[in-house]
Protein backbone atom coordinates (compact mmCIF):
# COMPACT_ATOMS: atom_id res chain seq x y z
CA UNK A 1 0.00 0.00 0.00
CA UNK A 2 1.43 3.30 -0.99
CA UNK A 3 0.27 6.50 -2.53
CA UNK A 4 1.86 5.56 -5.82
CA UNK A 5 -0.63 2.82 -6.59
CA UNK A 6 -3.08 5.57 -7.55
CA UNK A 7 -0.75 6.45 -10.39
CA UNK A 8 -2.54 3.60 -12.09
CA UNK A 9 -5.39 5.29 -13.99
CA UNK A 10 -7.86 2.51 -13.23
CA UNK A 11 -7.23 2.67 -9.51
CA UNK A 12 -7.30 6.44 -9.64
CA UNK A 13 -10.66 6.41 -11.43
CA UNK A 14 -12.09 3.92 -8.92
CA UNK A 15 -10.96 5.85 -5.89
CA UNK A 16 -11.86 9.28 -7.21
CA UNK A 17 -15.25 7.95 -8.33
CA UNK A 18 -15.93 6.77 -4.80
CA UNK A 19 -14.70 9.96 -3.13
CA UNK A 20 -16.26 12.49 -5.48
CA UNK A 21 -19.92 12.34 -4.29
CA UNK A 22 -18.90 12.85 -0.64
CA UNK A 23 -16.52 15.64 -1.57
CA UNK A 24 -19.15 17.36 -3.69
CA UNK A 25 -21.70 17.28 -0.90
CA UNK A 26 -19.14 18.62 1.57
CA UNK A 27 -18.25 21.38 -0.88
CA UNK A 28 -21.85 22.47 -1.19
CA UNK A 29 -22.37 22.36 2.58
CA UNK A 30 -19.24 24.42 3.28
CA UNK A 31 -19.90 26.97 0.57
CA UNK A 32 -23.57 27.42 1.45
CA UNK A 33 -22.84 27.70 5.17
CA UNK A 34 -19.93 30.07 4.67
CA UNK A 35 -21.68 32.25 2.12
CA UNK A 36 -24.99 32.42 3.99
CA UNK A 37 -23.28 33.09 7.29
CA UNK A 38 -20.96 35.61 5.72
CA UNK A 39 -23.51 37.48 3.64
CA UNK A 40 -26.58 37.48 5.88
CA UNK A 41 -25.51 36.90 9.46
CA UNK A 42 -22.44 39.11 9.90
CA UNK A 43 -22.51 42.87 10.59
CA UNK A 44 -21.04 45.45 8.24
CA UNK A 45 -17.52 46.56 8.95
CA UNK A 46 -17.36 49.95 10.70
CA UNK A 47 -14.99 51.36 8.11
CA UNK A 48 -15.59 49.36 4.95
CA UNK A 49 -19.35 48.96 5.19
CA UNK A 50 -20.84 46.05 3.33
CA UNK A 51 -17.94 45.85 0.84
CA UNK A 52 -16.06 43.84 3.45
CA UNK A 53 -18.16 40.86 2.38
CA UNK A 54 -16.23 40.58 -0.86
CA UNK A 55 -13.63 38.93 1.36
CA UNK A 56 -15.64 35.69 1.29
CA UNK A 57 -14.89 35.24 -2.39
CA UNK A 58 -11.72 37.27 -2.83
CA UNK A 59 -9.52 35.64 -0.20
CA UNK A 60 -10.41 31.98 -0.89
CA UNK A 61 -10.07 32.38 -4.65
CA UNK A 62 -6.70 34.11 -4.30
CA UNK A 63 -5.56 31.34 -1.99
CA UNK A 64 -6.59 28.67 -4.47
CA UNK A 65 -5.02 30.59 -7.36
CA UNK A 66 -1.59 30.45 -5.74
CA UNK A 67 -1.87 26.94 -4.35
CA UNK A 68 -3.14 25.52 -7.63
CA UNK A 69 0.15 26.63 -9.15
CA UNK A 70 2.05 24.94 -6.31
CA UNK A 71 0.08 21.77 -6.94
CA UNK A 72 0.93 21.98 -10.64
CA UNK A 73 4.59 22.38 -9.73
CA UNK A 74 4.52 19.26 -7.56
CA UNK A 75 2.60 17.34 -10.21
CA UNK A 76 5.08 18.49 -12.87
CA UNK A 77 7.99 17.24 -10.78
CA UNK A 78 6.24 13.90 -10.21
CA UNK A 79 5.61 13.58 -13.93
CA UNK A 80 9.20 14.39 -14.85
CA UNK A 81 10.67 12.08 -12.21
CA UNK A 82 8.29 9.14 -12.11
CA UNK A 83 6.38 9.44 -15.42
CA UNK A 84 2.90 8.92 -13.99
CA UNK A 85 0.39 10.05 -16.58
CA UNK A 86 -2.28 10.82 -14.01
CA UNK A 87 0.04 13.39 -12.48
CA UNK A 88 0.52 15.29 -15.72
CA UNK A 89 -3.21 15.24 -16.42
CA UNK A 90 -3.98 16.44 -12.89
CA UNK A 91 -1.65 19.39 -13.47
CA UNK A 92 -3.52 20.20 -16.67
CA UNK A 93 -6.88 20.01 -14.91
CA UNK A 94 -5.63 22.15 -12.01
CA UNK A 95 -4.36 24.84 -14.37
CA UNK A 96 -7.87 25.39 -15.73
CA UNK A 97 -9.29 25.81 -12.24
CA UNK A 98 -6.33 27.98 -11.25
CA UNK A 99 -6.69 30.44 -14.10
CA UNK A 100 -10.39 30.98 -13.32
CA UNK A 101 -9.60 31.48 -9.64
CA UNK A 102 -6.92 34.02 -10.51
CA UNK A 103 -9.38 35.89 -12.67
CA UNK A 104 -12.02 35.80 -9.92
CA UNK A 105 -9.52 37.14 -7.39
CA UNK A 106 -8.50 39.94 -9.76
CA UNK A 107 -12.07 40.93 -10.58
CA UNK A 108 -13.43 40.77 -7.04
CA UNK A 109 -10.34 42.70 -5.99
CA UNK A 110 -11.18 45.40 -8.52
CA UNK A 111 -14.77 45.59 -7.21
CA UNK A 112 -13.39 45.92 -3.71
CA UNK A 113 -10.75 48.43 -4.66
CA UNK A 114 -13.12 50.78 -6.44
CA UNK A 115 -15.11 51.90 -3.35
CA UNK A 116 -12.23 51.47 -0.87
CA UNK A 117 -9.21 52.87 -2.69
CA UNK A 118 -11.14 54.88 -5.26
CA UNK A 119 -9.60 52.97 -8.12
CA UNK A 120 -10.29 49.73 -9.96
CA UNK A 121 -6.64 48.99 -10.42
CA UNK A 122 -3.35 50.10 -8.97
CA UNK A 123 0.15 48.91 -9.82
CA UNK A 124 0.49 47.58 -6.34
CA UNK A 125 2.93 44.70 -5.78
CA UNK A 126 0.27 42.16 -4.86
CA UNK A 127 -2.05 43.15 -7.68
CA UNK A 128 0.75 43.19 -10.19
CA UNK A 129 2.13 39.83 -9.19
CA UNK A 130 -1.34 38.34 -9.48
CA UNK A 131 -1.66 39.74 -12.97
CA UNK A 132 1.70 38.16 -13.81
CA UNK A 133 0.50 34.87 -12.33
CA UNK A 134 -2.52 35.12 -14.62
CA UNK A 135 -0.22 35.55 -17.63
CA UNK A 136 1.78 32.49 -16.55
CA UNK A 137 -1.42 30.45 -16.38
CA UNK A 138 -2.40 31.63 -19.85
CA UNK A 139 0.99 30.68 -21.31
CA UNK A 140 0.89 27.29 -19.61
CA UNK A 141 -2.59 26.48 -20.90
CA UNK A 142 -1.77 27.78 -24.37
CA UNK A 143 1.28 25.51 -24.53
CA UNK A 144 -0.82 22.50 -23.50
CA UNK A 145 -3.31 23.15 -26.26
CA UNK A 146 -0.70 23.94 -28.91
CA UNK A 147 1.07 20.57 -28.88
CA UNK A 148 -0.61 17.50 -30.24
CA UNK A 149 1.50 14.68 -28.88
CA UNK A 150 0.28 14.28 -25.26
CA UNK A 151 3.60 13.11 -23.80
CA UNK A 152 5.58 15.91 -25.41
CA UNK A 153 2.97 18.38 -24.22
CA UNK A 154 3.20 17.03 -20.68
CA UNK A 155 7.01 17.23 -20.72
CA UNK A 156 7.19 20.74 -22.13
CA UNK A 157 4.50 22.16 -19.86
CA UNK A 158 6.17 20.57 -16.84
CA UNK A 159 9.48 22.26 -17.63
CA UNK A 160 7.63 25.52 -18.27
CA UNK A 161 5.87 25.16 -14.93
CA UNK A 162 9.15 24.69 -13.06
CA UNK A 163 10.94 27.54 -14.84
CA UNK A 164 7.82 29.68 -14.54
CA UNK A 165 7.66 29.10 -10.79
CA UNK A 166 11.15 30.48 -10.34
CA UNK A 167 10.34 33.52 -12.46
CA UNK A 168 7.00 34.02 -10.73
CA UNK A 169 8.71 34.19 -7.33
CA UNK A 170 11.35 36.49 -8.81
CA UNK A 171 8.65 38.77 -10.23
CA UNK A 172 6.90 38.83 -6.88
CA UNK A 173 10.01 40.23 -5.23
CA UNK A 174 10.84 42.46 -8.17
CA UNK A 175 7.50 44.29 -7.96
CA UNK A 176 7.87 44.52 -4.19
CA UNK A 177 10.86 46.66 -5.00
CA UNK A 178 8.63 49.47 -6.31
CA UNK A 179 6.69 50.44 -3.22
CA UNK A 180 4.58 49.04 -0.45
CA UNK A 181 1.32 49.60 -2.26
CA UNK A 182 -2.31 49.87 -1.28
CA UNK A 183 -3.13 46.27 -0.51
CA UNK A 184 -3.29 45.47 3.17
CA UNK A 185 -0.94 42.98 4.73
CA UNK A 186 -1.80 39.51 5.92
CA UNK A 187 -4.54 39.40 8.56
CA UNK A 188 -5.21 35.68 8.64
CA UNK A 189 -1.89 34.60 10.12
CA UNK A 190 -2.11 32.20 13.01
CA UNK A 191 0.68 33.78 15.02
CA UNK A 192 -0.11 37.49 14.88
CA UNK A 193 -1.68 39.74 17.46
CA UNK A 194 -3.64 41.92 15.13
CA UNK A 195 -5.90 39.83 12.96
CA UNK A 196 -9.27 39.96 11.32
CA UNK A 197 -12.18 40.01 13.76
CA UNK A 198 -13.69 36.66 14.71
CA UNK A 199 -17.08 37.76 13.39
CA UNK A 200 -15.68 37.65 9.88
CA UNK A 201 -13.10 34.99 10.56
CA UNK A 202 -15.31 31.95 11.16
CA UNK A 203 -17.56 32.29 8.10
CA UNK A 204 -14.39 32.98 6.11
CA UNK A 205 -12.92 29.69 7.31
CA UNK A 206 -15.99 27.91 5.95
CA UNK A 207 -15.64 29.70 2.64
CA UNK A 208 -11.94 28.81 2.41
CA UNK A 209 -12.73 25.17 3.19
CA UNK A 210 -15.48 25.28 0.58
CA UNK A 211 -13.16 26.71 -2.07
CA UNK A 212 -10.44 24.17 -1.29
CA UNK A 213 -12.98 21.36 -1.62
CA UNK A 214 -14.35 22.93 -4.78
CA UNK A 215 -10.84 23.00 -6.22
CA UNK A 216 -10.35 19.33 -5.32
CA UNK A 217 -13.66 18.35 -6.86
CA UNK A 218 -13.11 20.29 -10.07
CA UNK A 219 -9.55 19.03 -10.41
CA UNK A 220 -10.62 15.43 -9.86
CA UNK A 221 -13.45 15.76 -12.36
CA UNK A 222 -11.09 17.42 -14.83
CA UNK A 223 -8.47 14.70 -14.39
CA UNK A 224 -11.06 11.96 -14.84
CA UNK A 225 -12.30 13.65 -17.97
CA UNK A 226 -8.75 13.88 -19.32
CA UNK A 227 -8.09 10.21 -18.62
CA UNK A 228 -11.30 9.17 -20.36
CA UNK A 229 -10.57 11.55 -23.22
CA UNK A 230 -7.21 9.92 -23.75
CA UNK A 231 -8.74 6.46 -23.59
CA UNK A 232 -11.33 7.44 -26.16
CA UNK A 233 -8.59 8.72 -28.44
CA UNK A 234 -6.62 5.51 -27.99
CA UNK A 235 -9.72 3.50 -28.94
CA UNK A 236 -10.31 5.60 -32.04
CA UNK A 237 -6.67 5.19 -33.03
CA UNK A 238 -6.95 1.41 -32.60
CA UNK A 239 -10.14 1.24 -34.70
CA UNK A 240 -8.46 3.12 -37.51
CA UNK A 241 -5.09 1.41 -37.21
Amino acid at each position, binding site marked *: MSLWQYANPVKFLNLSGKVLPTLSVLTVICLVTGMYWGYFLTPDDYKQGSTVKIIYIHVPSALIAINAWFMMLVAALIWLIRRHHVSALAAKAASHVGVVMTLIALITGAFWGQPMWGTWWAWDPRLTSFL*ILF*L*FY*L*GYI*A*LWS*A*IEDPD*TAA*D*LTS*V*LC*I*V*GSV*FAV*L*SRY*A*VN*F*WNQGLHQGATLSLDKEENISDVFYFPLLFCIAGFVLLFLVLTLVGTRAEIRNRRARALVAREKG
Partner: protein
Amino acid sequence: MIALLIRDLRLALRAGGGFGLSLAFFLIVVVLVPFGVGPEMALLSKIAPGILWVGALLACLLSLDRIFALDFEDGSLDLLATAPLPLEGVVMIKAVAHWITTGLPLVIAAPFLGVLLGLPTQGYVWIVVSLALGTPALSVIGTFGGALTVGIKRGGLLLSLLVLPLYVPTLIFGAELARRGVLGMDTTTPILMLGGITCAVGALLPFASAAVLKINLR
Protein backbone atom coordinates in the same frame (compact mmCIF):
# COMPACT_ATOMS: atom_id res chain seq x y z
CA MET B 1 31.84 25.98 -30.12
CA ILE B 2 33.53 28.93 -31.74
CA ALA B 3 32.94 27.41 -35.16
CA LEU B 4 29.24 27.19 -34.35
CA LEU B 5 29.21 30.78 -33.15
CA ILE B 6 30.88 31.99 -36.32
CA ARG B 7 28.50 29.93 -38.43
CA ASP B 8 25.47 31.40 -36.68
CA LEU B 9 26.75 34.93 -36.96
CA ARG B 10 27.54 34.45 -40.62
CA LEU B 11 24.09 33.03 -41.29
CA ALA B 12 22.44 35.92 -39.51
CA LEU B 13 24.51 38.44 -41.45
CA ARG B 14 24.15 36.95 -44.90
CA ALA B 15 20.59 35.71 -44.72
CA GLY B 16 19.54 39.24 -43.88
CA GLY B 17 17.02 40.32 -41.34
CA GLY B 18 19.28 39.62 -38.36
CA PHE B 19 20.95 42.90 -37.49
CA GLY B 20 18.84 45.23 -39.55
CA LEU B 21 15.33 44.10 -38.80
CA SER B 22 15.48 44.28 -35.01
CA LEU B 23 17.23 47.64 -35.14
CA ALA B 24 14.66 49.04 -37.53
CA PHE B 25 11.90 47.70 -35.33
CA PHE B 26 13.49 49.31 -32.27
CA LEU B 27 13.71 52.60 -34.15
CA ILE B 28 10.07 52.43 -35.19
CA VAL B 29 8.79 51.62 -31.71
CA VAL B 30 10.74 54.52 -30.25
CA VAL B 31 9.54 56.87 -32.98
CA LEU B 32 5.93 55.75 -32.58
CA VAL B 33 5.75 56.57 -28.87
CA PRO B 34 5.91 60.36 -29.32
CA PHE B 35 3.13 60.04 -31.89
CA GLY B 36 1.13 58.18 -29.28
CA VAL B 37 1.71 60.31 -26.18
CA GLY B 38 2.33 63.69 -27.81
CA PRO B 39 5.54 65.60 -28.49
CA GLU B 40 6.09 67.21 -25.07
CA MET B 41 9.78 66.87 -24.36
CA ALA B 42 9.34 67.06 -20.59
CA LEU B 43 7.04 64.05 -20.56
CA LEU B 44 9.13 62.15 -23.10
CA SER B 45 12.38 62.61 -21.26
CA LYS B 46 10.69 61.34 -18.13
CA ILE B 47 9.48 58.12 -19.73
CA ALA B 48 12.46 57.69 -22.08
CA PRO B 49 14.21 54.93 -20.07
CA GLY B 50 11.03 52.91 -19.95
CA ILE B 51 10.34 53.36 -23.66
CA LEU B 52 13.86 52.35 -24.60
CA TRP B 53 13.65 49.27 -22.42
CA VAL B 54 10.25 48.15 -23.69
CA GLY B 55 11.36 48.84 -27.25
CA ALA B 56 14.53 46.80 -26.81
CA LEU B 57 12.53 43.99 -25.27
CA LEU B 58 10.06 43.89 -28.16
CA ALA B 59 12.85 44.09 -30.72
CA CYS B 60 14.52 41.18 -28.96
CA LEU B 61 11.29 39.19 -29.02
CA LEU B 62 10.92 39.70 -32.75
CA SER B 63 13.86 37.53 -33.72
CA LEU B 64 13.45 34.77 -31.13
CA ASP B 65 11.55 32.29 -33.26
CA ARG B 66 14.38 32.12 -35.79
CA ILE B 67 16.93 30.98 -33.21
CA PHE B 68 16.03 27.33 -33.58
CA ALA B 69 13.29 27.20 -36.20
CA LEU B 70 15.54 27.36 -39.28
CA ASP B 71 17.98 24.79 -37.92
CA PHE B 72 15.05 22.58 -36.93
CA GLU B 73 13.56 22.70 -40.41
CA ASP B 74 16.69 21.83 -42.35
CA GLY B 75 17.75 19.18 -39.84
CA SER B 76 20.97 20.77 -38.69
CA LEU B 77 19.57 20.89 -35.17
CA ASP B 78 19.50 17.08 -35.15
CA LEU B 79 23.14 17.08 -36.20
CA LEU B 80 23.99 19.53 -33.44
CA ALA B 81 22.13 17.40 -30.92
CA THR B 82 24.11 14.30 -31.86
CA ALA B 83 27.41 16.19 -32.07
CA PRO B 84 30.00 15.70 -29.31
CA LEU B 85 29.29 19.23 -28.10
CA PRO B 86 26.75 19.06 -25.22
CA LEU B 87 23.38 20.48 -26.11
CA GLU B 88 23.60 22.94 -23.22
CA GLY B 89 26.66 24.41 -24.93
CA VAL B 90 24.82 24.63 -28.24
CA VAL B 91 21.99 26.48 -26.52
CA MET B 92 24.41 28.87 -24.87
CA ILE B 93 26.13 29.58 -28.19
CA LYS B 94 22.78 30.20 -29.82
CA ALA B 95 21.95 32.68 -27.07
CA VAL B 96 25.30 34.42 -27.47
CA ALA B 97 24.84 34.62 -31.24
CA HIS B 98 21.35 36.02 -30.74
CA TRP B 99 22.70 38.60 -28.33
CA ILE B 100 25.48 39.69 -30.68
CA THR B 101 23.08 40.07 -33.60
CA THR B 102 20.20 41.62 -31.64
CA GLY B 103 21.13 42.78 -28.15
CA LEU B 104 24.45 44.41 -28.92
CA PRO B 105 23.17 46.61 -31.78
CA LEU B 106 20.30 47.69 -29.53
CA VAL B 107 22.73 48.64 -26.77
CA ILE B 108 24.76 50.70 -29.21
CA ALA B 109 21.73 52.31 -30.82
CA ALA B 110 19.91 53.16 -27.58
CA PRO B 111 21.75 56.42 -26.76
CA PHE B 112 21.13 57.76 -30.27
CA LEU B 113 17.44 57.02 -29.94
CA GLY B 114 17.60 58.59 -26.50
CA VAL B 115 18.30 61.88 -28.26
CA LEU B 116 14.93 61.59 -30.00
CA LEU B 117 13.23 61.21 -26.65
CA GLY B 118 15.06 64.05 -24.95
CA LEU B 119 16.92 61.75 -22.58
CA PRO B 120 18.99 63.84 -20.13
CA THR B 121 22.73 63.72 -20.83
CA GLN B 122 23.68 61.87 -17.67
CA GLY B 123 21.21 59.16 -18.70
CA TYR B 124 23.12 57.93 -21.78
CA VAL B 125 25.66 56.01 -19.75
CA TRP B 126 22.96 54.36 -17.63
CA ILE B 127 20.84 53.34 -20.59
CA VAL B 128 23.88 51.66 -22.13
CA VAL B 129 24.89 50.05 -18.83
CA SER B 130 21.40 48.75 -18.04
CA LEU B 131 20.80 47.40 -21.55
CA ALA B 132 24.28 45.87 -21.74
CA LEU B 133 23.64 44.10 -18.43
CA GLY B 134 20.05 43.14 -19.15
CA THR B 135 19.84 42.16 -22.82
CA PRO B 136 21.97 38.99 -22.39
CA ALA B 137 19.30 37.76 -19.94
CA LEU B 138 16.63 38.55 -22.55
CA SER B 139 18.50 36.47 -25.14
CA VAL B 140 18.98 33.50 -22.81
CA ILE B 141 15.34 33.52 -21.66
CA GLY B 142 14.33 33.90 -25.29
CA THR B 143 16.32 30.80 -26.27
CA PHE B 144 14.33 28.88 -23.68
CA GLY B 145 11.11 30.12 -25.28
CA GLY B 146 12.42 29.31 -28.74
CA ALA B 147 13.36 25.81 -27.62
CA LEU B 148 9.89 25.28 -26.12
CA THR B 149 8.06 26.21 -29.30
CA VAL B 150 10.47 24.81 -31.88
CA GLY B 151 8.19 21.97 -32.95
CA ILE B 152 5.09 24.11 -33.32
CA LYS B 153 4.06 25.50 -36.65
CA ARG B 154 3.44 29.23 -36.50
CA GLY B 155 4.50 29.29 -32.85
CA GLY B 156 5.46 32.98 -32.93
CA LEU B 157 2.44 34.25 -31.03
CA LEU B 158 2.63 31.44 -28.50
CA LEU B 159 6.31 32.21 -28.07
CA SER B 160 5.54 35.81 -27.11
CA LEU B 161 2.88 34.66 -24.66
CA LEU B 162 5.34 32.29 -23.02
CA VAL B 163 8.38 34.55 -22.99
CA LEU B 164 6.90 37.92 -22.03
CA PRO B 165 5.95 36.95 -18.45
CA LEU B 166 9.46 35.56 -18.03
CA TYR B 167 10.87 38.94 -19.05
CA VAL B 168 9.12 40.76 -16.21
CA PRO B 169 11.90 40.71 -13.57
CA THR B 170 14.60 41.69 -16.06
CA LEU B 171 12.46 44.52 -17.38
CA ILE B 172 11.61 45.82 -13.92
CA PHE B 173 15.20 45.96 -12.70
CA GLY B 174 16.58 47.11 -16.05
CA ALA B 175 14.16 49.99 -16.40
CA GLU B 176 14.53 50.83 -12.72
CA LEU B 177 18.30 50.98 -13.10
CA ALA B 178 18.02 53.26 -16.13
CA ARG B 179 15.43 55.45 -14.41
CA ARG B 180 17.48 55.85 -11.26
CA GLY B 181 20.59 56.53 -13.29
CA VAL B 182 18.82 59.27 -15.24
CA LEU B 183 17.53 60.87 -12.04
CA GLY B 184 20.96 60.62 -10.45
CA MET B 185 19.78 58.34 -7.65
CA ASP B 186 21.61 55.47 -6.01
CA THR B 187 21.87 52.60 -8.50
CA THR B 188 23.59 49.91 -6.43
CA THR B 189 20.56 47.71 -5.72
CA PRO B 190 19.09 47.49 -9.22
CA ILE B 191 22.52 47.07 -10.80
CA LEU B 192 23.28 44.14 -8.49
CA MET B 193 19.84 42.60 -9.03
CA LEU B 194 20.03 42.96 -12.79
CA GLY B 195 23.52 41.51 -12.90
CA GLY B 196 22.40 38.73 -10.62
CA ILE B 197 19.47 37.87 -12.85
CA THR B 198 21.66 37.81 -15.95
CA CYS B 199 24.28 35.60 -14.31
CA ALA B 200 21.75 33.21 -12.75
CA VAL B 201 19.75 32.93 -15.96
CA GLY B 202 22.89 32.37 -18.01
CA ALA B 203 24.11 29.70 -15.62
CA LEU B 204 20.89 27.75 -15.12
CA LEU B 205 18.46 28.27 -17.97
CA PRO B 206 20.56 26.61 -20.73
CA PHE B 207 20.01 23.31 -18.90
CA ALA B 208 16.24 23.77 -19.05
CA SER B 209 16.43 24.84 -22.70
CA ALA B 210 18.56 21.82 -23.59
CA ALA B 211 16.14 19.49 -21.78
CA VAL B 212 13.25 21.03 -23.66
CA LEU B 213 15.07 20.74 -26.99
CA LYS B 214 15.75 17.06 -26.33
CA ILE B 215 12.04 16.52 -25.72
CA ASN B 216 11.17 18.32 -28.92
CA LEU B 217 13.72 16.36 -30.97
CA ARG B 218 12.53 13.00 -29.67
